[in-house]
């Protein structure tokens, strides 16, 4: 007998999705209503998840679904950032005429898919969740269908994602074939001996996951999709799928393939180094802020993966801390981006920031904080994120990874400094409209203060995260 109370959040969100669909179909002009209802249902969802998070590890549905500290924490930050994504984007989608009923529903379905991914303990369940979230994301990417770039990005994402899903499925079937099970724990038990089949399986699965997390060399879609999608969707892309994919990464590496860390460690180290360097170098020449943040997120994923490559609890925790801080920085950055509005047009090129500091001192200050934090300069939150990762990396004596990673931060610092230069040193341009969107202002204020004041009490996140142990 399955205890359904443990998957109450998933049930709740599924019912909400269906209900909102019905409302949307039968009630005319209900887009704003559904948007607000979806936001509220996300808050309720968050409450439900937090309510469950005091429980111990629970296996459900013949061990194919798992609720533990990892999944709870990841779901909390997932849904939490989902709420802020809805909050910041509400005005934006109205202005660019995207306020349709499908938009919030697609976001909710994608979040549902991610929650299933995060909790999955079985290859098939995992794949179901993955496809649910991807399918919603394809549509979201091309949601601004009158815009050439948006449709292109949707198509691009679809084609490449389908390819990676194919590779992932192939990896899954290889793993199943050689370990005789789809259950993660069972795979671990059955794959004590080395064999090529499972190794290939790992490689293919990692390729698929690296695609989702946009790590080099599977990053090609990210800049185009980031630039083409509506900004609110870009924000969604920058945060939520990364959280889900990272937790699946942790799950795969440390549950079914835990015995084979000598096989996958090199791969992760390579992906991590490549992402850090490529993300840093490629961002230098960018002119579009969304494109730039795409490259920056590639390099940030490199750091998150560096933590995973260490095969230690410390490393896993540092990755989770990293992504938590990363999402706050992205929220703050995109909130600033949403503020660059003049006559119902949003500006997203670096040049549009020129001389911003003279007429918008507070906005510029927030951007300054966010950019220095993204660059990892102390005493801002971004420094601590990197500090934890390198703490874990050096514990395992992986000096090469640490030194390359830190040198990449110096390269990356260059393009963040360039934005700051444009904001603070360059001649000013026309003033932007002052935003009247309260949700946006609150998000920006909260995230900036978080980044700025993180150093006062840095153990907050670490203490929660330290409960997550995989080894």
């Amino acid at each position, binding site marked *: 007998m399955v205890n359904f109370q443990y998957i109450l959040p998933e049930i709740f969100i599924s019912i909400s999705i269906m209900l909102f669909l019905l409302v949307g179909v039968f009630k005319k002009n209900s887009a704003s209503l559904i948007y607000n209802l979806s936001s509220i249902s996300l808050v309720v969802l968050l409450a439900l998840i937090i309510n469950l998070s005091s429980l111990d590890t629970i296996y459900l549905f013949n061990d194919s679904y798992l609720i533990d500290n990892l999944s709870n924490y990841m779901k909390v930050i997932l849904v939490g950032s989902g709420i802020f994504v809805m909050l910041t984007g509400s005005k934006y989608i109205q202005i660019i005429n995207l306020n349709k009923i499908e938009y919030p529903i697609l976001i909710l379905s994608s979040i549902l898919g991610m929650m299933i991914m995060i909790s999955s303990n079985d290859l098939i369940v995992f794949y179901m969740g993955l496809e649910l979230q991807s399918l919603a994301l394809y549509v979201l990417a091309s949601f601004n269908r009158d815009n050439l770039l948006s449709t292109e990005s949707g198509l691009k994402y679809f084609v490449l994602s389908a390819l990676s899903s194919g590779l992932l499925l192939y990896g899954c079937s290889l793993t199943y074939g050689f370990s005789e099970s789809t259950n993660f724990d069972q795979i671990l038990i059955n794959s004590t001996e080395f064999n090529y089949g499972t190794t290939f399986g790992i490689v293919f699965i990692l390729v698929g996951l690296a695609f989702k997390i946009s790590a080099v060399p599977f990053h090609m879609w990210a800049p185009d999709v980031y630039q083409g999608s509506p900004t609110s969707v870009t924000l969604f892309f920058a945060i939520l799928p990364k959280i889900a994919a990272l937790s699946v990464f942790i799950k795969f590496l440390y549950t079914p393939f835990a015995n084979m860390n000598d096989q996958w460690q090199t791969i992760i180290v390579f992906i991590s180094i490549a992402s850090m360097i490529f993300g840093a170098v490629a961002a230098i020449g960018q002119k579009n802020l969304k494109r730039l943040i795409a490259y920056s997120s590639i390099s940030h994923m490199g750091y998150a993966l560096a933590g995973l490559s260490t095969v230690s609890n410390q490393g896993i925790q540092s990755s989770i801390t990293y992504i938590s801080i990363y999402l706050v920085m992205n929220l703050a950055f995109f909130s600033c981006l949403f503020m660059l509005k003049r006559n119902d047009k949003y500006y997203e090129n670096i040049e549009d920031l020129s001389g911003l500091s003279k007429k918008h*001192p507070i906005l510029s200050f927030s951007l300054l904080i966010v950019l*220095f934090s993204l660059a990892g*300069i*102390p*005493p801002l939150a971004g*420094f601590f994120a990197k*500090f934890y990762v*390198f*703490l874990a990396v*050096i*514990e395992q004596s992986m*000096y090469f990874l*640490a*030194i390359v990673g*830190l*040198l990449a*931060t*110096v390269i990356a*610092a*260059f393009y963040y*400094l360039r934005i*700051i*230069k444009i904001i*603070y*040193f360059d001649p000013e341009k026309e003033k932007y409209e002052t935003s009247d969107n309260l949700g946006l202002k609150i998000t920006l204020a909260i995230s900036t203060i978080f980044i700025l004041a993180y*150093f006062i009490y*840095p*153990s907050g996140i*670490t*203490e929660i995260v*330290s409960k997550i142990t995989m080894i």
Partner: protein
Amino acid sequence: MNFPILSSLILLPTIGALFILFTKSSTGKYQSSKYVALFISLANFLLSLYLWYVFDKDSVDFQFVENREWLSGFINYKVGIDGISILFIILTTFITPICIISVNATITNRLKDFLIAILIMETFMIGVFCSLDLVVFYLFFEAGLIPMFLIIGIWGGERRVYSAFKFFLYTLLGSVLMLVAIISIYWITGTTDVEKLYELGIQAEYQNLLWLAFFSSFAVKTPMWPVHTWLPDAHVEAPTVGSVLLAAILLKMAGYGFIRFSLGLFPIASENFTMLVYVLSLIAIIYTSLVALMQEDMKKLIAYSSVAHMGFVTLGIFTMTQQGIEGSIFQMISHGLVSAALFLSVGVVYERHHTRLINKYGGLVSIMPRYAIVFMVFTLGSLGLPGTTGFIGEFLILMGAFEKNILVAMIASLGVILGAAYMLWLFKRVVFGEMNKQELKSMKDLKTFEIITLSALVIPILFFGFYPEPLMNSIEASVENTLNMYNFDLINNLALKD
């Protein structure tokens, strides 16, 4: 004593900065924010003087130690001072109000932001000199980049963007390796607490690499040849006040770091690399002095002279003698006062004549007699005339050097001559000579606030030049202790090898 005096010193400027942030910027001259900043920085100066007064000069332990849990139990926020750090703290709190007074002349736009940047900078600088934990030290050390980057970039000269980037990226590149070293130390010894590390010691096999990693950071910051090139650029483009902060305090962080960390934590490696430091210091002293001779820009000349003076400092530290290290600390304090004063003096004429080229000036003595006098004191202080602080520092350093290596000391002594050459030549070209340039004739002598700031710097330069006892007293016990520990570690290690 329970009152957290060091944390107050660190936090007070930040509180002041927040205060300024929320004061309504009255249109016009923004006077209120300036007075707030001045008040806060003076309060901080008085607090640091009080600290000096209650500071126990004979004790070798760290005093006023505060230890709080910070990073989930494994890294603590720990601050404390000993004889080595106390003087740097006073130097910082002394220079900051002078900077704020001088803001009048140089900063015309965004005064409020500038004051905030300076106060935040003061917080970080004091933090560097107080911190007794490597991570806390790194935090303050690096955080200083942010306000300095903005100070150079927003209020700087023509090539400010280039200089700001160069400054930021150079120092960041040097420092990241130090971060690797700090984390490695944590995993090797299980702590980053400096006091505990002094007791535990670090195994000899790790020391060389760790020393090099720290060195990469400090060498850039000092700056030592060949990574000094950011300094002339940064100095020239920074506004006067920025140059003052940079020369007077920021450069001292590295010298302080050498004594506190390189010597204290890695004695064996320090011994191994002594020759390297000697060579780089000598090149810095001779080469940059020669470069300084050729400069046409006053600020650039002083910038190169800073590199040469810091060459003396590093030389003195690595003689590992009582005189050498005491001399280095004294030289750093002296250079902090003198270079600040020189940059302010350049600022005075720059503000009136809007050029820093030496050949545009000449014969200032006839129209600006007061200026000529103070400028002369600073020039003599810089070249190390007996009776100024510069002399005592250089003399002690050379004494230490002669004890260890006569050849090194002789070459370094050449630097003193070169120093005299470029400084006197500068003085001659700017202040003496024929007054034959028409456009100079309208220049006015020092204004009141300039008299205040410059004489505030003349007094300590002369006073401590004649009577260095109060400074020496504070340093002595701690330097002796550092050296004892250093020699003890070395002997122990030699005994282990046999």
